[in-house]
């Protein structure tokens, strides 16, 4: 059971590295951005994993419940913010990619470098 509980952290690590791999190894700019959002999603998972309290429930009070354990609200707040930051970055990144496509007619990193070298 202990291993099963660590599984959440491992998934965080594996997702993080899948995303990281995509960002550094892929040359297509959109693929890089997809990788970047996977990378960030992994961090969301890390924080949300922390917030869980065994036997607890979502930190929204229910009427009449006494001695109810609640999960930690703070990581949730942080991740709400982080998700918004993530989508903002993504939107900006995509805007830049669209402009790159217009200017260079390609969104492959090595081809752009090729064009710039000329």
């Amino acid at each position, binding site marked *: *059971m202990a291993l*099963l509980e*660590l*599984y*959440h*952290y*491992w*998934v965080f*690590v*594996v*997702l993080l*590295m*899948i995303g990281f*791999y995509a960002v*550094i*190894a892929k*040359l*297509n700019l*959109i*693929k890089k951005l*997809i990788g970047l*959002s996977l990378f960030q*999603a992994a961090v969301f998972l890390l924080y*949300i*994993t922390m*917030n*869980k*309290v*065994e036997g*607890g429930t*979502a*930190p*929204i*009070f229910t009427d009449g419940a006494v001695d109810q*354990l*609640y*999960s*930690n*609200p*703070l*990581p*949730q*707040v942080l*991740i*709400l*913010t982080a*998700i*918004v930051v*993530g*989508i*903002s970055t993504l*939107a*900006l990144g*995509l*805007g830049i*990619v*669209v402009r790159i*496509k217009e200017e260079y007619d390609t*969104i492959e990193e*090595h081809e752009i470098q090729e064009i710039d070298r000329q």
Partner: protein
Amino acid sequence: MTVVFSFFLLTMLIVTAIAIVRIRDLFAAVMLSGIFSLLLAANFFLLDAADVALTEAAVGAGISTVLFLSALAMTTDKEKAAPSNRIIALIVVTAMTLALIYSTFDNPAFGDPDAPIHQHVAPWYLETTREAIDIPNVVTAVLGSFRGYDTLGEVFVVFTAGIGVLFILGAPSGKPRQTTDLHSEGLRHYLVPRVVGRMLTPFILLFALYVQFHGDYGPGGGFQAGAIFAAAIILYALLEGEKSALEAIPRSWLIAMTAGGALLYSAVGVAGMLLGGNFLDYSVLADNPVAGQHIGILLIEAGVGITVTGVLLSIFHAFAARDKF
């Protein structure tokens, strides 16, 4: 038992992630990342993070899918096979993975109520919310009041992204594109989506308002509401065409909303300052501190909602307008 469910969901998450990275069809990759978001959101839900689950679904599966698709429409949807430093990247990544996994063995056990993280600040939030703010949703209380400054920052992040995309895509294009009028037409000629969509749009708008104002009591709040509201308008644009959507809410309104929401939020903060409290102190907004907190949270959530709607729609229109060059 939920741990076992999580196990399956998490495994699916990894499978999806690998598939996303490996697949060369970007269109498929975007669809898969929509699925990824849904899975992630389901996981969040299992981990008691209802608000986050709601947001992740609205953002990951909804907004970012639409954004990716708009970008793909203007660029390309096939990733070229290219020489890459794959082996080195794989080695680096594998090494880091092993190191990180090794370090996790000392983490506090998953869900242990005695872990330091649950002992220090969290209980205080739960208690103080009951006394000083008196709304059931602690997440909203923390978001709106205890860490309202973070949320202000968050609104300005969205605001920055909004003006950023407007700025970048407002640049004169390198070359004129051929005009295809398909977009402006929308899906109007397809009967089923059109009828269903028309029926649904008002309900979605209504639901967005519900999410906005029910945020104190259940999962939801300004950001989620803004995203849903924007999604409704985007749906309208998909069905009736860009032009009609812009007629419904013109661009100048969107800019005004973008700025207005951010200003509303800041104004609440400044009001706290003027009334003798600190910045973002809502207690001074009314005679009764608790009532003041209620007013403050209501107003700032409205500010968040307005800005998010404005920004997301501006971004959507900026992408769509670029396409028709």
